[in-house]
């Protein structure tokens, strides 16, 4: 356990060393959320609510979806692909800890950094400028934090899968990009899933992606109520466990496939 905490800490400190420019990032994020707010106001065009979400809830949804993204988002798929291409993975694999766990912990270090230095100040600014409604209910916040931890796990597992695929494809920039697009769309980052036509919602309810963005954002905006919250969290938990199987399966296959070209 100690070594994992150390990995998180080191990645955190690494990010901290380059923190200054993060503040410019907050400005860009705010412009982004602002533009989205006006776009949605135009879409609502005076309507009270669409699919049970009011315009204020919609603004909150978007703000929190993007801020939560800063926490769960990481580039470990690209990092793994890079280490495989450069042959570094061979050295990493002889180290006395599992490679995949290490990658996950590095992602967590990055996520915690962004949560503290990016999402929190960013959310404060956005809440001052735009009509965002922050819940005063403690349990909502608690459920939300539980939920974004699951988001992180699910998203990271999918990243690991995309990264490990490099063992088989050698060059998988295309796959990584496709994955990102699919996640943006199916996770509910761009549009709440309840806006999609019914048949599309049915398909998405069988996929793990809604656990990445839609569930935490709906919990935060209180679009989910009562038992819906528990069902959503159980859905996330089940996917977090279920995805371990393909990750380890693919990893075992990949280790057999390993060809190191240089290093």
């Amino acid at each position, binding site marked *: 356990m100690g070594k994992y905490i150390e990995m998180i800490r080191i990645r955190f400190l690494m990010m901290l060393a380059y923190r200054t420019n993060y503040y*410019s990032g907050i400005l860009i994020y705010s*412009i982004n959320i602002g533009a989205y707010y006006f776009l949605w106001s135009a879409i609502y065009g005076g309507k009270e609510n669409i699919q049970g979400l009011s315009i204020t809830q919609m603004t909150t949804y978007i703000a929190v979806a993007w801020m939560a993204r800063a926490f769960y988002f990481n580039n470990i798929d690209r990092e793994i692909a890079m280490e495989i291409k450069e042959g570094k993975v061979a050295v990493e694999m002889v180290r006395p800890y599992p490679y995949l766990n290490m990658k996950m912990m590095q992602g967590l270090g990055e996520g915690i950094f962004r949560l503290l230095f990016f999402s929190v100040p960013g959310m404060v600014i956005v809440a001052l400028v735009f009509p965002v409604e922050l819940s005063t209910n403690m349990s909502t916040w608690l459920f939300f934090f539980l939920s974004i931890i699951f988001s992180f796990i699910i998203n990271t597992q999918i990243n690991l899968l995309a990264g490990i695929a490099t063992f088989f*494809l050698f060059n998988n920039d*295309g796959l990584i990009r496709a994955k990102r697009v699919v996640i943006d*769309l199916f996770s509910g980052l761009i549009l709440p899933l309840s806006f999609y*036509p019914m048949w599309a919602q049915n398909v998405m309810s069988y996929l793990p992606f809604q656990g990445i963005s839609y569930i935490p954002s709906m919990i935060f905006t209180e679009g989910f109520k009562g038992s819906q919250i528990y069902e959503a969290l159980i859905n996330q938990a089940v996917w977090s466990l279920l995805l371990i199987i393909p990750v380890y399966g693919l990893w075992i296959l990949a280790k057999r496939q390993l060809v190191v070209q240089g290093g």
Partner: protein
Amino acid sequence: MDYISIFFQYVGQYLKTRLTYRADMVVEIFSDLLFQAVNLVFILVVFGHTSLLAGWSKDEMIFIYGFFLVPFSIFASFFNIWDFTDRYIVKGEMDRILTRPVHSLFQIVLERMELESLFGVITGLVVMFYAGNQLGLEISWYDPFIFILLVIGGALVYAGIFIALATIGFWSDSRTDIMPMMYNIGNYGRYPVDIYNKVIKYVLTWILPFAFVGVYPSSYFLRREEWYTYAFLTPVVGLVFFLIAVALWNVGVTKYRGAGN
């Protein structure tokens, strides 16, 4: 030095390397298509809940998106500099670039081109013709020429903005994460600028002029005469922003001190 012949030699080499990883190339084109589909899905889903967006219809929005894809794809094929700081400054690769006989920016364009993105030009044209047909738009003999001019203007706007952002790397090599967000902000240029408040409208017109890659030039083809002035400003804005960006780059290069190991 003959820039054009060097350019085509690089294109030749590029095609060879891409054809080595055919599976990846297919996935990449597919992922581009997917990416373009996502934006269409957004428009379609949104118009499932409303019939007009600030007076613009669904087909008009689709047309704007189709137009946007053309300059954007040209930009994406040749100006892959969103990871410039990481790739060239932090790793010291810029040292190598500066020893090359062509202009440093041109050298990076050559090394980082991604020609498969040009596929988006076809998608864009297909989308435009589909939407134009639905709207019953007429094409005059000179429209294709204006189209080319506006597309070049739009591509230069994008190139200018991203080159200018990349030059930040010459002064400060810390990571920003601005670039990926910029791609997102670029999307807002595709919606009628009336919907935004004054600040954002001003930003999208004069500071990060993404509106010149979407709604302004498209309004010419959609015969929205109130926007004609802006539509015809597109090439001017593109040229001005591109030249400013290159000037910034040239200053930035002199500040480069080398790094890496």
